[in-house]
Structure formats: structure tokens, C-alpha cells
């Protein structure tokens, strides 16, 4: 019997590992991800994962954590790791390695602001900082969605059309430490959804003696034995794999809904009251879930407003977003992150995606809630109203400064110039 339990987001991730039968876990604690590591060790020590003979490698750093799971994945095992912020940054080199080796590593990010100055609280800067390492990247809004998305991520990552690692990112504390009801599914149902791993590389396969060699010449070399693959071509094939991922993700989302009766939009984005909306909010994760109540409140005021909550950030669903925004006149983007020297990352990615579209809405971006500054519905309503009032102001549209919501400059002794 599937059971509904009240657990934190971190524990939801750990339960998902148990459900999918992860064979090797290597992880290093960091706030706010630590309880994931603790819970999995508890499962392993209590013998609850004996069926899979799960090995927990208690490494001495994040770098070793990701390195260990890369190696185990190349040895044909289903693997998992998790991190946050500076730990994630410490993994950076190996993240590229996992993707370049096309290993279906699934990894959770309990999102947290990157130091300095130190913060343990949430924003999305860490997750967005690793957007170009080659991982697929999904954002979630609830603990149930964490559990479900980890399940889906394995299916997508291990699909032979994809073979790419995947991030599942959720807000530190806001989900990681918040208890919510989560339905834990039966193993046989999970097995129906997620087939056994068919690794493309298995170092134990002595018969064929495959090595995994990342050293490639810059140009295709014709040798007596045949062609030698080149680095550039590998990059191309990675890009193709990302492009293939869309159909795999949509299939997985459909199958997930059929088997478990839950769904998250089309698996790519979740639309909320968007059908007739002239104004759309665009956000991810905690900001998106906070926006739902905001949409309800503003609808009561008579505004035709909706929400596009982006679930899949990498690959970036350009085609789907062009469709999603084809009716809107105004898009308000709330970024809990910033591309320093430019603007919110979601905002500029969306602008680029819609630039060639036939219908181009006005896109207005705001920065919110960095380093865990609480985002209240009033903050978001203020942003939407400001965007509406300045919608036709050409000067505002042409301006290059970035709007921050919820700053307390004077209270904290800063000047307007940030000094």
C-alpha cells in the first residue's frame, strides 16, 4: 500500500532514493542538504535498502562525493548525491565530468545562497550557477514534487535517447526543512514506471574491456583502425541529447500521471490560471508556489492573470515557452537569483527565447528574496502592479537597471547606491 507521511523535503528526496533502489550514494553534508545524507545513511544502516545492497560512501568532501558517484555510475550502478551552495560550487569540475561522460547521475540541490557573505538560507543562485555544465535541471514547488521528480529524473536520465545527469532543485529550508504530506509509492509501481538501469558503460564488463577515456584530439583523425572521435563532436552529441530530452520528459510525465495519478503540467512547465491570462507571472520553485496565491488574489481584483511555473530549466524549453506566452501582453518574471552585471537569469533567458517569436509580450523582471529574505504575497503583488503601471513606459522598458523587491537599504545602513 502506498503510504502518505508527513516529511521534510530532504527526507522526501531520501525516500525517493529508496523507492528507485539507488545502489551507490556518496554525499557530504552541508546546510541545508545534510538531512538527505543522514536519512539515507539511516536507511542503509537499518538494512532498509538491503534489497539493492546499497553502499553509502561517507566521503570527506563534495568533490569526492560527486567523483565517487560518477565512478559508481560508470561501473553500472544507479547512483545519487546531493549538495547545496558552496558544496555544489566545490563540485563544479566533476559536474562537467559527469555530463561529459554521459552518466545518468541524479543529484538534488537544496538551494542556498552562495557565500560570501555567508548565508545558509535559500535563493536559487547556486542551482543557476551550474546551468551550463551539461546537467538537465528541474525545479520543484513541493515535497511531493521532490519525491516524484527524483523518480522521473532517473527515468529521463537513464533513457538511451538522453543519458545525461540531472539536477532536482528545491529551496533550502522552505522545502528542505518543511514537513508536508508526501505519498510514498509501492516498489512494484515504481518498477512499472522506472525500468531497470541499462548502463551504457560498465567497467566490470571485462569481456569487452571498455575504458572511458576523455582525452580526445581536437580534430577527427583518420587512423588505420578507423575514425577517432573528437571533442567537438561529443559536444554536439550532448546538445542533441538535451534536445531529445523534451520528448522523453513529456513521455515520462504522461506515464507518471497514468501510473501514480499525479502530474506537474506537461513535465516542462506548470500553468496556473493561464488560459485566458493577459498577464503571466514567470518563476520557479518557491517563488512560483508563492505566486499561486498572488494570482488568486489578483484575480479577485479582476485582473486576468496567471502563472507559468517553470519545471524544466535545462534543456531550456524555448518552443514550449513561446506557446505558453503566445497570448500574454505582459510577463512579470521573479528571479530569486541574479546574473550579476545583467539581470535575473530567468528574465534574460525568457527574453532570448521569445525574441524570435511572432508575438512578443513585454517582459519585466524583478529580483526577489536573495539569501532567504522572506517573499510575501505583498512583495509579488507590488511587483506585478508596478509592472502593469509602467507597462507602456518606453523609458522603463529601455532602462538597463535591475529592480529589487524587498530591500531594506536604509534600515541596514546602505545608501541607494549600495554603499
Amino acid at each position, binding site marked *: 500500500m502506498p503510504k502518505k507521511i*508527513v516529511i521534510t523535503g530532504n527526507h522526501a528526496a531520501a525516500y525517493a532514493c529508496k523507492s528507485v533502489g539507488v545502489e551507490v550514494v556518496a554525499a557530504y553534508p552541508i546546510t541545508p542538504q545534510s538531512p538527505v545524507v543522514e536519512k539515507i545513511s539511516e536507511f542503509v544502516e537499518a538494512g532498509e535498502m538491503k534489497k539493492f545492497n546499497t553502499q553509502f560512501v561517507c566521503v570527506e568532501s563534495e568533490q569526492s562525493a560527486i567523483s565517487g558517484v560518477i565512478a559508481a555510475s560508470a561501473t553500472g550502478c544507479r547512483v545519487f548525491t546531493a549538495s547545496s551552495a558552496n558544496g555544489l560550487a566545490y563540485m563544479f569540475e566533476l559536474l562537467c565530468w559527469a555530463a561529459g561522460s554521459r552518466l545518468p547521475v541524479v543529484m538534488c540541490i537544496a538551494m542556498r545562497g552562495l557565500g560570501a557573505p555567508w548565508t*545558509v538560507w535559500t535563493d536559487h543562485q547556486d542551482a543557476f550557477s551550474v546551468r551550463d555544465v551539461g546537467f538537465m535541471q528541474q525545479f520543484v514547488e513541493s515535497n511531493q514534487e521532490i519525491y516524484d521528480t527524483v523518480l522521473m529524473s532517473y527515468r529521463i536520465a537513464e533513457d538511451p535517447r538522453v543519458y545525461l545527469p540531472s539536477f532536482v532543485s528545491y529551496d533550502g*529550508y522552505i522545502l528542505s*526543512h518543511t*514537513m*508536508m504530506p508526501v505519498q510514498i509509492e509501492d516498489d512494484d509501481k515504481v518498477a512499472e514506471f522506472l525500468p531497470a538501469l541499462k548502463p551504457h558503460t560498465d567497467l566490470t564488463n571485462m569481456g569487452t574491456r571498455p575504458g572511458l577515456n576523455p582525452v580526445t584530439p581536437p580534430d577527427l583523425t583518420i587512423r588505420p583502425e578507423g575514425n577517432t572521435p573528437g571533442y567537438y563532436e561529443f559536444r554536439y552529441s550532448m546538445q542533441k541529447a538535451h534536445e531529445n530530452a523534451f520528448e522523453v520528459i513529456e513521455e515520462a510525465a504522461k506515464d507518471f500521471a497514468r501510473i501514480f495519478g499525479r502530474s506537474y503540467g506537461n513535465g516542462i512547465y506548470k500553468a496556473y490560471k493561464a488560459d485566458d491570462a493577459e498577464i503571466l507571472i514567470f518563476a520557479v520553485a518557491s517563488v512560483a*508556489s*508563492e505566486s499561486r496565491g498572488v494570482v488568486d488574489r489578483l484575480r479577485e481584483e479582476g485582473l486576468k492573470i496567471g502563472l507559468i511555473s517553470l519545471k524544466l530549466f535545462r534543456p531550456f524549453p524555448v518552443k514550449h515557452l513561446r506557446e505558453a506566452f503566445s497570448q500574454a501582453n505582459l510577463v512579470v518574471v521573479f528571479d530569486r537569483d541574479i546574473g550579476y552585471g545583467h539581470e535575473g537569469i530567468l528574465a534574460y533567458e525568457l527574453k532570448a527565447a521569445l525574441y524570435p517569436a511572432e508575438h512578443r509580450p513585454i517582459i519585466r523582471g524583478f529580483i526577489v528574496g536573495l539569501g532567504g529574505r*522572506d*517573499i510575501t504575497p505583498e512583495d509579488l503583488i507590488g511587483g506585478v502592479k508596478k509592472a502593469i503601471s509602467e507597462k507602456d513606459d518606453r523609458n522603463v522598458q529601455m532602462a538597463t537597471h535591475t529592480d529589487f523587491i524587498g530591500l531594506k537599504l536604509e534600515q541596514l545602513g546602505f545608501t541607494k547606491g549600495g554603499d
Partner: protein
Amino acid sequence: MIEIIIYGRGGMGAVTAGKILAEAAILSNNYPEVSAFPSFGTERRGAPVMAFCRISDEPIWTRAQIQQADYVIVLDETVFGNHVIDRIKTGGALILNTWKCPEDVRNMYDFGDRKITIVTADLTQIAFDLKLLNRENQPIVNTSVLGVIAKSSIKITLDDAKNAIENKFGKSTKTDLNVKAANMAAEQALVEEVK
């Protein structure tokens, strides 16, 4: 949606109280959606802490901290004060662990003319009476408070509270003691009549 803030001190189990409350809410079948979370910070033993809980029959999408709650539960009277009263919605309720009666509380603090129901129960005394103490010989009050909640207008019964406590701690004599404390708290709680 009902919003609840729990005040306590680090080590008293305010966060656990939130979690058990959320569990009990689920078990009641009246509130299929819950979310319980600590005030996000580094918890230090003895320092004032806050925990938050939302229970609802509809999906909960807000992730913001609760500014003003329908119910404010205070596990330790020494953290109580006007700043706590400010966090109670008009029409809401205060549940305070104290030996005082609601009338005394109203007189001692500045409630102004706000319409707030005051509920008091001497959870600390109940814990001492039952020898319900933690490893540091501190009285355990984060479970018995569920009994007081069961007496409030929140649709959670004493049975739900009992089941939630058993789910959390497993069946044992200590758990039984916790349940007993909740029952006693339910009996002894004093609810102020709102004029």
C-alpha cells in the same frame, strides 16, 4: 487554511510540536494538506525559537513565514510578551503554557481591545506530576499541548493527537505518558470566554 505559530526555547521541541500537530491534522481527515517548518535559523539550546504550521483542506502554496497566525502557541511563558500578541490575528487564539488563568494573562499584558481568545494550561505542572521529563530533567510540554489544541476549534480530536504521538515516538510507556499528559491538558485547559 489555519495558520499556527509555536513559540518555545531551543531544545523544548517546538519544531516537533509543529510536526506532530501536522500529523494529527492529516490523521483527522479534516486537513489533508499541511506544512510545518521551523523559523529558519541556527537553533541554539535555550534561545527563543519559533515553529510554523499550516493546515488546510486545500493545497497550500504559500511558502512565506507566518506573520500573523490564527493560533499562537507559547510553550514557555518566559518568551511571551507583546511582540507575541502582535502575531495573533484578530479573532484568533493564544494558547499559553502557564499556571495563570486567562483573565490574569489578559490583565498582565497589553491586548488592547483586540478580539483574541486566551487559553491557558499548566503543561509544565502536568509534566512534573507525571514525571514526563527529558534527559535533562526538563518537563516535556510539546506533546501535551496537542490536548489543548484538541479542545480548541481546530478539528483535531484527542484520538488524532494520540495517534500522531504514537506515530512519532512508537508505542512505549513513555509514549503512553505523553498521551496521558495530552488528555490531562485537555481536561485542565482554561478557555476564556470572549465577550
